[in-house]
């Protein structure tokens, strides 16, 4: 692992050089810490998909006979103040976190690439305007932009995806723009123009394939941040709405009963932390493989 500010909103290193191939295997085989991270992520995905079969109880079913219980053989993580099984809620909470962790960087990647490529390829005023706007957005921490948009759009999963994707947008615009500009100056682009190809065709068949590598890397680097922001926003009441469980709202819910039983707060909090840690480690490993310079 190398020192980096990735998880926090600092710009990931722009990988302008064309990356060598990074296969899943090269990531797993990098070192044992990374392979644990990869295994954990695979495990999380299985838990998310198989939640209905794994979870011992219905995550939203209340049981007034078993409120705020400490961990026991029946309820491994205890129950919350409505008597709901905390383990089942944490298992189901994997779903919104992972779904958002993938959807938000993906959405930001698609739109950010589109804008960045157009700005980098055509230059001129389009470039100046997008440059200026993304500078302004970059000055804001992703979490704050997420809060602003989610507060304006209102709570809900789709709104959350849009909010977080918007927060990431300038990062993708920057990378896409910089990569496009370096590709733009290559002789084969001039050759394509001279051969009479349309801009659309050049963008699709020459520019996009050559810049996709760095963008995929940026996308993986932001998954951990997306999951953390999702937890924060759900905690603030802007994400997944109760009674549907998400790690953030389980913690919010647990605040009121922390004096009696801290189990829901601790279980969900550990889940977020470990999940973010795993994605961070794998993200760092991918970046180190592609850009060994950033390693210390």
């Amino acid at each position, binding site marked *: 692992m190398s*020192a980096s500010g990735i998880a926090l909103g*600092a710009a990931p290193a722009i990988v302008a050089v064309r990356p060598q191939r990074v296969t899943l295997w090269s990531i797993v085989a990098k070192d044992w810490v990374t392979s644990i991270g990869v295994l954990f992520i695979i495990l999380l995905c299985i838990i998310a998909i198989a939640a209905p079969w794994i979870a011992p109880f219905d995550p939203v079913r209340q049981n007034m006979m078993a409120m705020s219980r400490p961990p026991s053989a029946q309820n491994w993580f205890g129950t919350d103040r409505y008597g709901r099984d905390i383990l089942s809620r944490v298992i189901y909470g994997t779903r919104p976190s992972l779904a958002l962790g993938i959807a938000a960087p993906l959405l930001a990647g698609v739109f950010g690439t589109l804008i960045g490529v157009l700005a980098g390829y055509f230059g001129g005023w389009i470039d100046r305007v997008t440059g200026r706007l993304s500078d302004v957005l970059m*000055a804001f921490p992703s979490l704050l932009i997420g809060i*602003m948009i989610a507060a304006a759009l209102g709570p809900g999963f789709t709104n959350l995806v849009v909010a977080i994707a918007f927060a990431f947008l300038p990062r993708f615009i920057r990378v896409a723009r910089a990569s496009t500009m370096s590709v733009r100056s290559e002789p084969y682009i001039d050759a394509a123009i001279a051969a009479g190809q349309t801009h659309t065709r050049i963008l699709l068949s020459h520019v996009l394939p050559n810049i996709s590598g760095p963008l995929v890397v940026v996308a993986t680097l932001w998954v951990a941040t997306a999951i953390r922001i999702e937890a924060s926003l759900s905690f*603030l*009441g802007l994400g997944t709405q109760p009674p549907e469980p998400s790690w953030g709202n389980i913690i919010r819910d647990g605040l009121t009963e922390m004096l009696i039983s801290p189990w829901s707060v601790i279980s969900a*909090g550990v889940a977020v932390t470990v999940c*973010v840690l795993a994605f961070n480690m794998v993200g760092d490993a991918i970046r180190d493989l592609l850009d060994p310079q950033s390693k210390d």
Partner: protein
Amino acid sequence: MIVRRILDALITVFLVLTFVFVAMRVLPGDPAVAALGDYATAEQLAAFRERFGLNAPLWQQYVQFFVNIARLDFGTSLISGESIAMMLAVNLPYTIELSVVAMLIGIVIGVPAGVISARRRGKAADYIARVLALAGFCIPDFFLGALILIVFGLQLDMFPTMGGGTTFDERLYHLVLPAMTLGLIMAAFTSRLTRSALLEVLKRDYVRTARSKGIAEHWVIYRHALRNALIPVVTGFGIYILTMLSGSIAIELIFSRPGVGSMLVDGITARDYPMVQSGLLVFALFVVVVNFSMDVLYTLIDPRLRAGGGR
């Protein structure tokens, strides 16, 4: 130089205000529905629109929005009917004192930790510092806050767990746990930044020259290397202060502290639209102010920028 920065900041303020305006009025469709809920009657909605000038053409609302802000008129809360400007005057100091103390804790722990980490690179101390910093990166601030609250507030009962206090002593006492939470996260950022910046600088020729002259190692570090290493630390610091500020929203909620974050969250929960708007505005202005200060600080600690101009 400074004039350009001020101009830049003003443009940003303008864009930010426009952004908040657009976010609050245009995006979700109808703020009246958003504020009153889906079950509001047509008359209630009409009255709401009338009261907040939402019937006027959009450009008029836009102009009015700027005029009101310039007059520090943020409207009144829909729930309590209080003037939001007054509420801000009461709540803002709590948020500012939390951020400033947290920032100090972050610097006091983070910079020395980063220096030790860089000096003993690869040794046990470096390893421990880096693992702790990584933990600080991955643990969500509100979860760390909850843990600290459970341990020091509830189990050990050493510090107050809610409120912000009124007298100076009380306020300081109430600050301990929330400021420690944000400060520790801040320390993780700072130590990582300091470490990598210092390692970068230690490779330079002038450090080698200083060492070859036989200057004591701690003198080389503090006098020659750290001063230069602080330049990238300060730039990185801006975004971390802001990350911490956005974290303060959740922390205020955890510790039931008064503050702008609490106002914002209360506003969101109660669908109190003027309150949400004002909360967002204040945080947006924080961003502009912090970035501006960082730019100025940057030119102060790096004389090359004052002489040459431009980065």
